[in-house]
């Protein structure tokens, strides 16, 4: 009995020792030489593996950072943001410039009310499939197709489709500006724009490059390329090209003059503080006749706000 126990212990011990040696040899022989800093960088990354940085995942991004160190200008983890990049820089012992936080912006205002449907799409519900087939189920061949490829592409659940408007809505809290939706959108409607001061942003919510009359016929809230906004902008932030206005967010100072000027309400201002309209405030310029009531309200209240702002200035 005792002998059995002794034998067992002995055999197990020897076997264990042998295997340990084998393991050691194998581990040594097939060791992958890797910069230990990659592990350290990976530790401070968010671990979402979203690919928003342009790399295959967080580990690949860590490797990319280590390789491009000391110059981290081309490395940015949209999820971790500036804070995260500071941590990465600290690990690598280098400096990194602070980048403006960004957010995904849907540049289409073709709601069901603004943009009447001209046909019914009857194929697979995917923007890519639809875009490859034709211009879409409205008169506008540039606008949102509404099948939600961006919703599917978002790893953070930040995009939802609004069933009433048929357009995607970005949850600013959840959006990490990883750019997956930008890539997913076959119509290039979604853009990453600077979040702006206190999240206040002014942008042209349209990508239609048709001539004014054509664009207007397809969608009552389309940019018709009239150029009024560019004229009124004191900071030269607005350019009109191919019948479409674009606001450079780096130059925009949020004065909102363009918002008031736009005849179709294609320019949107978001997250500006709501100021109670003063009774003596002059009547807002007539919004486009067939703009939906809600959109009209937004525009007129924005106009009033901008006028209030002017007075404050």
């Amino acid at each position: 009995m005792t002998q059995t126990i002794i034998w067992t212990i002995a055999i197990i011990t020897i076997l264990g020792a042998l295997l340990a040696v084998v393991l050691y040899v194998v581990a040594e022989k097939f060791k992958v030489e890797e910069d230990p800093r990659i592990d350290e960088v990976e530790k401070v990354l968010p671990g979402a593996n979203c690919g928003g940085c342009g790399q295959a995942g967080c580990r690949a991004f860590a490797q990319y950072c280590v390789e491009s160190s000391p110059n981290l200008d081309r490395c940015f983890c949209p999820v971790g943001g500036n804070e995260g990049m500071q941590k990465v820089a600290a690990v690598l012992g280098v400096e990194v410039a602070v980048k403006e936080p960004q957010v995904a912006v849907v540049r289409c205002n073709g709601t069901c009310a603004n943009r009447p449907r001209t046909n019914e799409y009857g194929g697979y519900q995917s923007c890519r499939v639809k875009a490859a087939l034709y211009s879409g189920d409205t008169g506008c061949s540039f606008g949102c197709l509404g099948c939600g490829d961006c919703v599917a592409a978002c790893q953070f659940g930040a995009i939802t489709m609004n069933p009433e408007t048929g357009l995607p809505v970005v949850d600013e809290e959840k959006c990490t500006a990883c750019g997956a939706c930008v890539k997913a959108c076959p119509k290039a409607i979604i853009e990453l724009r600077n979040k702006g001061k206190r999240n206040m942003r002014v942008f042209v919510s349209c990508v239609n490059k048709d001539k004014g009359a054509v664009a207007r016929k397809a969608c009552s809230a389309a940019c018709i390329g009239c150029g009024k906004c560019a004229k009124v902008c004191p900071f030269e932030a607005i350019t009109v090209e191919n019948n479409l206005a674009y606001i450079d967010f780096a130059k925009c100072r949020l004065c909102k003059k363009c918002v008031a000027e736009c005849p179709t309400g294609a320019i949107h201002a978001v997250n500006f503080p709501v100021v109670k309209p003063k009774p003596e405030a002059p009547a807002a310029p007539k919004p486009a006749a067939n703009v939906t009531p809600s959109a009209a309200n937004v525009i007129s209240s924005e106009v009033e706000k901008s006028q209030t702002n002017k007075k404050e200035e």
Partner: protein
Amino acid sequence: MLKTFSIGGIHPSDSKISKDCKIEVLPLPSKVYISVAQHLGAPATPIVKPGDAVKVGQVIAEPAGFISAYVHSSVSGTVKSVGPRKDLAGNNMTHIEIDVEGDEWAEGIDLSDTLVTAIPEDNKAILEKIKLNGVVGLGGATFPAHVKLCPPPGKKADCLILNGAECEPYLTSDNRIMIERSKEIVVGAAIMKQVLGGCPAVIGIEENKPEAIAAMTAAVAELQKTAKGYDGISVMTLKKKYPQGGEKQLIDAVMGRQVKSMGLPIDVGAVVQNVATSLAVYEAVQKNMPLITNVLTVTGDCVPMEKQHNYKFRIGMPLSYIAEYAGGIPEQAVKIVSGGPMMGKAIANLDATTVKGSSSLLYLTAEQTVRKAESACIRCGKCAEACPMGLEPFLLQKYARHNMTDELEENAVQDCIECGCCLYSCPANIPLLDIIRIAKGDVIKIIRGRAAKK
């Protein structure tokens, strides 16, 4: 035993309702809009400007590249504008708008009905005429005809196949021209055969067109008796199976050879041209007539017999004009297709105009065409059974949904010919082709990118 292709295929009802409707000539509208993209390849460059007077058959746009084609005015009148207009799919494309005034033809075009059977000897001159007269393949792909008729150095054509299969249900335009213009088609075949170096020519026609088979056989026999250069042309009756008219399938059916993946028909010694292209070649070479007309079928289950038509149209006529002339859009139609029901394009914009390759205005009813809700794949394998390329669509769509491009390439998604057999036959209504088509594009891009790097 009739020949057919060896893999897959389906048997939808052929619904050739308008097969007995004689070709009628459409009157001219007051305006035409001629697209500069009527062929595969680079859109042509307009060479006219607003205010210019043009005659029928005058060149109004020149090719912009090797794979491109001339575009001619189909009417006489004044150019009103040159600019973007929405095409069939609602996308902007440059169109030349012409106000129609009279019907004055450009010089040098033979408008008589006499059949010219003597084939010019100079092959180069023939090719030049085909090119200058803007002839493109009229079987669907609208590939410039002269390019196809010049095999690359080192490759020789063993057989010219004339595609008279017209395997798409409903379409009858090829059937009609084979009955009404059989001799011209045979002359066209003889011309192309000579250009290709005298290889034999086979005219493949599906068994459901007995009149066309009889007419073509008679035309071949008569021309062989009365004129020179018509030896080696024969008519082959094929079993009815879709997609017999697919280039690769037709080569398999007629010659028993298979084109390698990503290869060209000429690799196995085959050149395939549609019968309508053959007619266009005849007119271009023997009559110096540019390709400005074609035949289009107006049909559908919901179209009464008296409103079924085969029309000879001129390019640039708005589809809405043709629909109106043919008696309006039927009540029950929910979808209008340009082309056959299997591979044609649903029309999003009826104001779009006819192009060289237009072949039909097909009205489909809700019952026929509305897709039913997708349900789970039951792995019945009917899609794989139907696929004429021997692919496994159920597998490809699964990989495609997960963006697995390596697996897609391994399973030959790039070989897909988009014939629609898989989607047609799926009992669970899975949008197989919708998904696979996109994946195919992605994979081909990857393959091309890799080839370019090498």
